[in-house]
């Protein structure tokens, strides 16, 4: 009896294999983004200019190792060792996009980023514990040729930060200020920009995005500022070259004022490497490795690595 769930899971997994291995072009209509014979390996870091009707989920884990959360300091001439620690994150994104017309789509993305916490020192000093939020947007095609596409976007981001910050709370007590131990910070941002895709050959493409927005920080005293997000990616489809239904994406992104930042002058740089199964015309499954370099509220730099699994179905 106890074997039944396991057997059912095995049968389900085996049933998925022929579906996943269906030959490209079987449905007669390629629904994944493509231009000039190139199937784009799109990614969440750079975005893409293709209005589609699709649903996407991304599940990921991230870790920052050996953070210097509180630097070494001196008390009365005696050196006191600072605090280092690890931060562990889990990330879940769900997005639904609807192509209202072939030239425009709207999307709604909901995301949760929670800190799992693997080290007491890290838990105590770096406060953000949970970020829930959503993004609402419009994507509209502005120009299209056989090999290029340019689209405009407009969106609003609404996030809620739950922050448990023992260090700030303790500092507040020492300074005689009423700093809450647990607080919630809603952060709203609006913006828009341009997204570009270029099918260089049937196996190589390029993606680029530039966005400008205005919004606030998650800091105790909210700071409003303008921000930019720029990104670029290469899309490599191995199918035309080696007859292998695999695509590779490599991307880079720069945020002048990331959503998670407590201070507007903290920039972030991110990179992504994606491997995508491209054997179906209407479905992709991708494995992501990404990294972000940003600055914590205490001023120290942090490198965070993420791994994630993305599935997207195109209707």
């Amino acid at each position, binding site marked *: 009896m106890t074997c039944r769930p396991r057997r059912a899971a095995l049968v389900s997994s085996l049933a998925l294999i022929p579906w996943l291995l269906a030959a490209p072009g079987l449905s007669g209509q390629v629904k994944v983004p493509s231009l000039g014979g190139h199937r784009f390996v799109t990614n969440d870091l750079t975005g893409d200019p293709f209005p589609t009707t699709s649903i996407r989920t991304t599940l990921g884990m991230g870790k920052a190792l050996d953070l210097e959360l509180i630097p070494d300091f001196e008390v009365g001439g005696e050196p006191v060792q600072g605090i280092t620690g690890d931060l562990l994150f889990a990330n879940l994104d769900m997005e639904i996009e*609807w192509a*209202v*017309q072939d030239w*425009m789509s*709207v999307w709604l993305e909901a995301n949760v980023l929670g800190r799992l916490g693997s080290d007491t020192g890290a838990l105590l000093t770096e406060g953000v514990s949970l970020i829930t939020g959503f993004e*609402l947007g*419009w994507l509209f095609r502005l120009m299209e040729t056989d090999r290029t596409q340019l689209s405009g976007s*407009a969106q*609003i981001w*609404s996030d*809620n930060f739950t922050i448990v910050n023992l260090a700030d709370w303790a500092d507040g007590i020492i300074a005689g200020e009423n700093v*809450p131990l647990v*607080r*919630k*910070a*809603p*952060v*709203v941002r*609006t913006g828009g920009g341009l997204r570009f895709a270029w099918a260089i050959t049937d196996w190589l493409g390029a993606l680029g995005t530039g966005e400008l927005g*205005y919004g*606030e920080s998650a800091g105790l*005293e*909210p700071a409003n500022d303008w921000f930019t997000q720029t990104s670029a990616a290469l899309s490599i489809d191995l199918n035309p070259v080696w007859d292998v239904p695999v695509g590779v994406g490599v991307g880079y992104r720069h945020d002048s004022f990331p959503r998670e930042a407590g201070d507007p002058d903290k920039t972030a740089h991110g990179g992504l490497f994606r491997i995508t199964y491209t054997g179906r015309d209407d479905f992709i499954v991708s494995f992501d490795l990404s990294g972000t370099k940003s600055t914590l509220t205490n001023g120290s730099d942090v490198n965070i690595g993420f791994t994630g699994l993305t599935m997207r179905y195109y209707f």
Partner: protein
Amino acid sequence: MFMRTLAFAGLTVLGLLIPIPGSAQWTFGVQAGLSRSKVSGDAPEKIHYRTRTGPMVSLSVEYARTPSFTLSFEPGFVQRGTGIAVEVPDIKEPVDTADLALSYVTLPILAKVYSRGGRAFVSAGLELGLLTKAEFELGGSTESIEQGFNDSSLSALFGVGTRFRAGPAEWLLSVNYFQSVVSVVGEEPEDAEGFFPARFRTSGLEFKAGILFAPGGGR
């Protein structure tokens, strides 16, 4: 500052409504519904914000630039705000204690794109709100507190809806998500310094039904 915002909004409307000869059609109508709103902000200790429901009504002037793309100007009135619940010792759930009602004359400009079948649509735009009344109700007594709030607000709107024809009119059902993109709280009065949290914005859903007439016949 407010007059400049108003002038900018007016010029934007005029610019968007410049006709394209031979492809446009005007429709006029009214809409009414309910606004389910809440304040999102740094709630003071032991305070929780609650969703409240207020009425909304608007005129509707729509201009179809193409069969699938419409610009809509919907001047109206809406009451937004928040319920306020307070944590009380020995009671598990926070107790609904007070109510904040913010009444606005609203001037939204929306772009609407209809689906291929023409039945469903999505909309997005900006709304300029002019505060007419701010009332705080506590223990049965109501007090006007306009002094602490900005005279105007700016909100982003995103919506979905459907339309259908019945008789000579076109009927609309829609849901809008609205989010004020700047704090609705202005410079605090001296005697209330520190009362309002740093972030204080309204957001929520608006459920609307409307009827539209085209002077020259249906579109």
